[in-house]
């Protein structure tokens, strides 16, 4: 009886743990859906609401309130959640972008500075050599 | 460093200094050597007027209690050596032969006079019990 129970236990646990390994999608996808873009907006709205509440409950003078309010509304979305992609994916992309930005090219035909992704010069229409 | 940060740092420093002072004061007023029976007997001469916390086991058969006078006498031992203890006050429940005890008080070379008595049950992981002199 005991032996049966033990074998059963081992079998059940083995099944629970090992079945995902035999399925196609055995891995947890590491790049999940990106965070909703409204994060930054929500935080700012919340911050403004907090300020309004503080003002309404008598913690701030009208002037202080106005000053803080414009400060919050103007703050860049630096406090927004970063991209919900793991660093291993984002970092090389960022590196590429930075590298690409560093390259500045001029048109072979007219000498105008060329925008990065240009394949034809915007000034004279000459096709651009090199990277796609 | 911005003005705000400097003010905060100043406040923090004040807090820490105040805390350190309180800690030092508190430590000084309650510091006591924590010794086993053997250690105390070895250093008896130097410990004459020092506050000591003595730990050991209650020697089996050495307990003498006067329930009315509230006095308690017993020997505390570390397994090989022993010394006598006198205590006055409420005796904790865990106190009995073989119990682990910690007594706080002074040793005059002969007897240990305890102001406080803590007892723990002989087996591990059981609650500690405390008794105090008035």
């Amino acid at each position: 009886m005991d032996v049966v129970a033990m074998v059963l236990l081992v079998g059940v646990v083995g099944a629970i743990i090992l079945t995902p390994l035999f399925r196609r999608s055995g891995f947890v996808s590491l790049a999940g859906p990106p965070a909703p873009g409204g994060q930054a907006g929500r935080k700012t709205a919340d911050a403004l609401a907090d300020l309004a509440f503080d003002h309404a409950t008598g913690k701030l003078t009208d002037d202080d309130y106005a000053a803080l309010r414009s400060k919050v509304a103007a703050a860049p979305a630096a406090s927004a959640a970063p991209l919900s992609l793991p660093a291993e994916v984002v970092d090389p992309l960022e590196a590429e972008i930075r590298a690409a930005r560093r390259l500045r090219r001029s048109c072979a035909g007219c000498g105008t500075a060329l925008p990065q992704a240009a394949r034809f010069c915007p000034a004279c229409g000459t096709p651009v050599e090199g990277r796609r | 460093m911005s003005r705000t940060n400097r003010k905060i740092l100043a406040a923090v420093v004040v807090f820490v200094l105040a805390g350190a002072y309180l800690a030092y004061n508190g430590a000084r007023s309650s510091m006591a050597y924590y010794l086993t029976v053997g250690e105390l007997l070895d250093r008896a001469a130097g410990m004459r007027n020092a506050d000591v916390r003595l730990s050991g086991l209650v020697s089996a058969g050495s307990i003498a209690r006067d329930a009315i006078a509230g006095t308690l006498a017993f020997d505390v031992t570390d397994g090989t050596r022993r010394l006598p203890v006198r205590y006055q006050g409420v005796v904790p429940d865990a106190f009995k032969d073989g119990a682990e005890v910690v007594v706080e008080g002074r040793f005059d070379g002969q007897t240990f006079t305890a102001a406080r008595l803590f007892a723990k049950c002989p087996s591990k992981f059981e609650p500690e019990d405390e008794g105090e002199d008035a």
Partner: protein
Amino acid sequence: MSEIGALAVVMAFVVSTYGTVMPLHSGLRAVYANALLLGVASTAFLYALLTRDFGNAYVAGYSSRDLGFWYTLSVFWAGQAGSLLFWAAVLAAFSALAVWRLGRLRELIPYAAATLMGTSAFFTMLLTFVSSPFARLPVAPADGAGLNPLLQNAGMFFHPPTQYLGFVGTAVPFAFAVAALVTRHLDDEWIRATRRWTLAAWFFLSWGLIFGMMWAYVELGWGGFWAWDPVENAALLPWLTATAFLHSVMIQEKRDLLKVWNVVLIILTYVLALFGTFLTRSGVLSSVHAFATSSIGPLFFLFILLVLGMSFGLLLTRLGALRSQGELDSLVSRESGFLFNNLIFIGAAFAVFIGTVFPILSEAVSGMKISVGPPFFNQINVPIGLTLLVLMGVCPLLAWRKASPGHLLRSLAVPGVTAVAGAVALLAAGIRQGTALAALTLCVFVTAAIIQDVHRGAMVRRGHGETYAVALGRLVARNPRRYGGYVVHLGIILLFAGMAGSAFGTERDAVLARGQTVTVNQYTLRYEGGGTYTRGERIITEATLTVFENGRLLTIMRPQRNVHTGRDEQAMTEVAIRTTPREDLYVILAGMGDDGRVNLRVIINPLMMWMWIGAGVLTLGTLIAFWPQAAAAAQTRSRRLAEAA
């Protein structure tokens, strides 16, 4: 049945290890398998307990045939192997629950699960190789040794499991913090996701402490509820850092500040929870000999060092990314209030920790063990407690970012005046003791400040055309965390008030012959007589006392001093307590002589009842804080208030 249990434990160890190193889908399944296995092991263990399987060494060592059902249950956590199994089982259950509920955090979950499984691997390793709850005796005895009578009471039934739920609960936010660090998802996602876990763990840590105090007061019977004992301190330390963490994360959520603080705080909380578990197992502080006899001490110590080292190492590598972009706008703001709050709690934790490990430190430094006593802890923590009271009152009145000083002072006016009135009333009531007076006055101050802030909030809503009652209700429903927090603070205030009472109590010893009396304050106790009788296994020595208050007959009290016969003789004091809102009359029967005279200790403990009421209020506040925010309405409120301003 025992073999199944033992097998389940070994398998749990294997599965936990697997789950630690395989953070893929199979690894997550391991979390569930682990929970299943430890569930099986716990069931097998309970079966052994309830069927009195004395072939099991643990069952034989801690229970007996005549032990009642509930106490037999409590044997589960009475000894080392059983309590380790309990810890592991709770951890397994929490891990499974966390993975199930938080599985949507696809990037964090693998590493969080791995962290939880790593801990589980350690505990199941101990259970398999060091301290097995299923070890058999070569010959099964006819009856077990029985449970120490000191443990046969409600306190010992509730206190350990609650404490463990608290300790283990801190593992989940910790695991997600580690995951956040590893994956560099250093925003507040992990905090928001584990908020309820943190709250629940904090709640159980609080009740672990409260049960402990209740038990010490009522059962251990020496007149007090806290002695700064190393084991007590071990439970207090994670509570202190958890409270700081609970507050500090709000700042990260709102302002993206204090990120490094938050990671440090959760690491400390978890490590201190492990440390607390370690302290109560290994006896390292009371005696070095006990520490060395079982290998559990050194193993635990190594594990704690490993966790500490790896967490802080990981933190150091992410330090740059964690540094906040913003900074504090002003010294006088809610943010800086929270920062001070962090500092104070850390300071208290540091002081308690140092005081607790002082003997070990001093031995390392000077070769002699030196310990510090309650005066050390009280000297540090009483001012800290008072400072916390001040913060509790002032912080809600501070605005975010930068408070207007003039308005702040205006906000403090009413609470301040109320506090002064309170102080006058206290003095009139005869309370002169400095610390108690300060603490109680501050309690009045904080209560007034909280009521004022809630009232103002309700009034703002009333401006939108709601009745006061509806306004109040909606106010709380829109922000249950904040107002639940206020209620918790009210609970803490009552607890502090109860503690303040112990600063001006009275104590008197007396030896009485029959008919003699002792007078303490307004009470007169007359010893009517006493005797000894047997009830079952207990020899009960009881004294009957008639109590008069200002001459008027009040009640009869019967303190006892019992002896449990059985394998060992065990003394048990049953104190007699009479509780009123104003004070507790507490009588200890220290001894009864052969001539029938009794040695009594009579203690007056002012305000004790408020501590237990405070515990209830704290529970209510936690429940409110747990409540989900009325979501859609919150958006409307945000929008409406932003537009109106």
